[in-house]
């Protein structure tokens, strides 16, 4: 089956109209999204956070991992004080003499990386299982959904605790734990919408054209199941970041050598009683900002992509 024929079957005529001001679904979607100012703020903030994480080493005033430049002499400086190297620690330094701004930027890289990385892997696994459950139905569906149901009846934090208690510490391990926690949400979401799509005529048409099963599932069914999936994925990334921070705080997630935002907060917790608030508070605010802005975007996406709420 050639792509051209398939295209024609899907009604490829519409694509040749490259008029300037045609209202495509994508443009309508963007316009809808932009109507809400808070959501736009969320989107811009998320981009900003991602940029900071991407270019972290270039922006950070010091390198918190460089043992040659971090000295214990600088430990627990209040915000605004000057470090031995002449750099001003805008948000103070932590118990080991690391500049908080730099530590937070590096921590953000790890938090975001773990959150997004685990999200993508869980998405791939969950979507595959969810689509298969919906497409094949019968026993395959029962088995997959039973596993999903059982897993979802336990709180995410508990599942993650079990896994990390057995696996130990490490970036790869926490990603593995987060994937196990999250895949079931994706599977359930995608199955829900795929069950509806499965009975549509275009699936029947694609099957009649003799397309292979994987092709029908991934090229025809999947694109039509995307809207709820995008919403869940956004929310899940925020959730994963929060969960990772919580696990790190409990001392289960990441090794001390790679402090994420959660671990920075945990390190600061011991100093909070003596009034050194900045070690805990600022990484917390960064974490909060990241999670809340991602949720703002997700919330708006849910409203815009929900066909029931459309005018």
């Amino acid at each position: 089956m050639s792509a051209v024929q398939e295209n024609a079957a899907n009604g490829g005529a519409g694509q040749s109209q490259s008029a300037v001001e045609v209202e495509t679904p994508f443009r309508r979607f963007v316009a809808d999204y932009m109507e809400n100012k808070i959501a736009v703020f969320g989107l811009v903030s998320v981009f900003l956070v991602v940029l900071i994480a991407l270019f972290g080493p270039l922006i950070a005033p010091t390198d918190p991992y460089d043992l040659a430049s971090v000295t214990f002499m600088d430990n627990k400086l209040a915000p605004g004080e000057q470090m031995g190297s002449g750099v001003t620690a805008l948000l103070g330094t932590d118990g080991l003499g690391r500049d908080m701004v730099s530590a937070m930027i590096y921590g953000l890289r790890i938090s975001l990386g773990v959150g997004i990385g685990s999200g993508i892997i869980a998405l791939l696994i969950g979507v595959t299982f969810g689509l298969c459950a919906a497409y094949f139905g019968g026993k395959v569906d029962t088995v997959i959904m039973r596993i999903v149901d059982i897993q979802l009846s336990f709180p995410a934090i508990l599942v993650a605790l079990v896994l990390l208690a057995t696996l130990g510490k490490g970036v790869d391990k926490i990603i593995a734990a987060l994937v196990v926690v999250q895949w079931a949400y994706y599977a359930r979401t995608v199955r829900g919408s795929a069950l509806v799509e499965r009975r549509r005529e275009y699936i029947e048409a694609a099957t009649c054209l003799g397309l292979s099963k994987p092709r029908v599932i991934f090229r025809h069914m999947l694109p039509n199941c995307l809207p709820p999936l995008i919403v869940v994925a956004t929310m899940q990334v925020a959730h994963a970041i929060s969960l990772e921070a919580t696990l790190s705080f409990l001392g289960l997630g990441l090794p001390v050598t790679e402090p994420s935002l959660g671990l920075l907060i945990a390190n600061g917790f011991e100093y909070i009683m003596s009034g050194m608030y900045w070690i805990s508070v600022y990484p917390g605010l960064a974490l909060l900002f990241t999670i809340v802005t991602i949720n703002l975007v997700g919330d708006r996406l849910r409203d815009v992509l929900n066909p029931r709420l459309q005018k």
Partner: protein
Amino acid sequence: MTVFVIRRLLQAALVVLIMSLLVFGGVFLVGDPVEMLVADDADQAEREMMIKSMGLDLPFYLQYLRFIGNALQGDMGNSFVFQESAMHLIAERMPATFELAFAALFIAVVLGIPLGIYAGLNANSWISKTIMTSSILGFSLPTFWVGIMMILFFAVIMGWLPSSGRGDTVNVFGIPISLLTLDGLSHMLLPAVNLALFKLSMVIRLARAGTREVVHQDYIKFARAKGLSDTRIIGVHLFKNIMIPVVTVLGLEFGGLVAFSVVTETVFAWPGMGKLLIDSINFLDRPVIVAYLMFVVVLFVCINLIVDVLYSVLDPRVRLQEMKS
């Protein structure tokens, strides 16, 4: 009804069995408990004696059967650290955790339902919008960080409330309860509120969504047409009908509260099961980890079972649907 309950019971037993296999397999096969128990300078003979005495030389299925057999008699092994029965350790810590979870549940329900109904009835007022925005915050804020901030504000800066521990307790039927003393209450307030925040947001959202749906139903219109007072319509007709999702959540989330108390207990140094688990993980105290996990699994399965049965009593449609399939 009986068939429904029996079927659910069997299902629950199966889940417990599968989970026990996973927990046992996970904790006992990953990593080597002998490494921790034997002194570093132990020779091969001592090592083998240890392995034999723990039954680690047996094939996996025999080890597992032995574990199940002991577990059915309530014996989950002895803690490596405390040299005490793991079940006993957990039972000792249980009242503190349950007390905290109940207090949090109470706060979530008593505040959440009225706020949710209010937001549902007056969807466009600014108070409702404030309630709903706060509930989004309640969802997104990581519990542990909120807890730290509460300690910073109420304990360190203001000095109003103690930051950690459980305070004085009173024994009721041999169970220590801190709700009954002023000192205990003051210790409990911060952790309970901290633990409640997430569930509170959830109850608010559920109550609001339920209210908005129920308000437009015919029976509410009919009740209005009959000339019933608003208080009666909201208090009886509306309240009853929004309770189905709320009861589910109350039931299911109680288990969630127990699980999440791991975080709150660590922040506030509350001497409950969750703190025991984290300490045990840090000490690699496997019997306690397994015992805690199995305990929570059984707790969850029981809660799910009770909620399912209650649900089918409240809403016969659930039961009938199950019968058909």
